[in-house]
């Protein structure tokens, strides 16, 4: 969980975790895989807590169960497609 410090322009999108299993090791790994290709930081925010989307462990610490509302944040517009991809992955329930 990292505190946000800089106030660079950012894009965000809200998604709800729909899969039965929530963000557990395997789903977190799939998000991290996508986020690792980003140009700048990609964050997953739940409530006041923020996690680095490219780290499985960081995502796990947010303990996102089914029905959790989370916000995906990118720091660079160039990562827009990655934001969309992650959001779609989550909304599709990880194909479970």
């Amino acid at each position, binding site marked *: 969980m990292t505190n946000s410090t800089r106030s660079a322009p950012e894009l965000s999108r809200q998604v709800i975790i729909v899969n*039965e299993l929530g963000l557990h090791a*395997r789903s977190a790994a799939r998000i991290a895989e996508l986020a690792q290709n980003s140009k700048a930081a990609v964050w997953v925010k739940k409530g006041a807590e923020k996690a680095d989307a490219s*780290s499985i462990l*960081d995502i796990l*610490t947010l303990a996102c169960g089914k029905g959790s509302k989370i916000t995906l944040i990118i720091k660079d517009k160039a990562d827009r497609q990655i934001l969309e991809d992650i959001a779609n992955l989550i909304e599709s329930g990880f194909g479970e």
Partner: protein
Amino acid sequence: MMDAATEDIILKGISASPGVCIGKAYLVYREGVDIVEKYQIEEKSRSNEIKRFKAAVKKARDELRKIVERSPEELQRAHILETHMALLKDKMLYGSTIDVIKNEGVNAEWALKQIVSNLREIFQTMTDPYLKERAGDVVQVADSIMQNLVGAERVNIAAIDKRVILVAHDLSPAQTSQINLERVMGFITDRGGKASHTGIIARSLEIPAVVGLKSATLSIRNDDLIIVDGNTGNVIIHPTEDTLVQYEERKINYEEYKAVITRESQAPAESADGVRIAVMGNIELPEEVFALINYGGDGIGLYRTEFQYFNRSDFPGEDELFDKYRDVVEVMDPKPVTIRTLDINGDKALANHIDSGEKNPALGLRAIRYCLKKPDIFKDQLRAILRAAAFGNVRILFPMISTYFEICEANRILDEAAESLEKEGLPYKRDIEIGAMIEVPSAVIMADVIAESVDFFSIGTNDLIQYSLAIDRGNEQVAHLYQPLDPAIIRMLKHVADVAREKAIKVFMCGEMAGTPHHIPLLLGIGMDELSMNPQTIPDIKRVIRSLNVADTHAFVNEVLKQTTAKSTFELIKATYGSILAEQTYIEEEI
């Protein structure tokens, strides 16, 4: 090290698999991983230190990849190993360690140790049991890096071909899948309990094992001569001449005894007055079936199905379950296989079951309650069972029934599962026996009603005792109050058996009580049709049954019912059957 030891060093652990073995120790984890040196790295050498760390991670990844590639698919562990591979490069582990080396100028081992202990703390303090357990993953992953860093020679377990006794702190799923356990005489671990995966494997291979020794890896060195007594849970390091002789004798005695009873055990258990009692085995892994057959089991009285749901983040599919069930059913045919539907609960939390933070999981959403709430998951399992039933003699057992409504619902969903199979034209068998686990006091009281909807009862004594006496066995303050012979329990058992007889259905027992020799006269007297237990106790129980006269046990039960305490009941058993029991079972006195 055979030089004259003058005193035995004895470690006490938990007996996980019976038998005695004497041999040389083979440590799976060399020492050195837990003790980490700290030293400063000068600024100009830090990039080299980082390179050294990266190389250690790469080596760990390569090793893991090889294990993944070699793992047979049926082990179902590959996905854990794949997650481990991803974790090796995770920012919070990998990136943070590099940052610490760079910024604090400490050696890689020390930096890694700091990072891991932080991560472990974060996960261990989480409430979700699934997430809590991820701390173990982090530690295992870090250990593999650490071993490469400290240059500890990595033990290639798969290559062990000496007849050795394995000594390990704990055996991870990756390790157990590699060990060629047939080559190992026995094994001991610092961690783990009777029900741990390694214990199950040891029992199925019939090699002695002692677990939960806490500090075996610290006290034992490679090639030390050790004795493992899986009957008592003792491990002796550097035994004296006298002790060695004593244990050689014990080993021979035990093996002779086992050979005799295993032979005898293939015959049915018929009491002295000609009553046949089915003596069945409880299993969890398909691999255990062979031990069960060896021990002379008359069938499977309890097939626990949770194992396939553990250590994974998705649910097993119907076909996967069907394959496993079919294997067991085909091997056992025509003997019955009693498949208990998913019984997940607090102490066996499913990796993918999002824990709702239940304060009291024993009284929470578990077993049939969970399945009725998740009909899709339930139906997958029921379809797999019905399909496997086409290949042999299958019974279904619904766990933790506490109301009549639950058994009706379970039967309704079972019908739906059968209809869907019919529509799809898949082979299945619907005409199988349905049973209710009797393990909640309300089910005892409603037994006459529940009996209308089932073909048999199976009494699960572990939970029944816990729920009836309101005792949490895990709580040391009250664990001594957990008494199978409490008169309240005996009356309940009698009631259930009486109802079963009246309603002309069968009554079985599959809790620990059924596998305890001194409970047998009582259980026969009450009228149990079938007893199911850990496979290795089957021969003992068969012997006890053969020495008893069932007609006498009925009269004995009348005396038992007059007792008012667990203690006086036990005294009565001892006075009446003590000598028979002592003759028929293998009891060793402690040295």
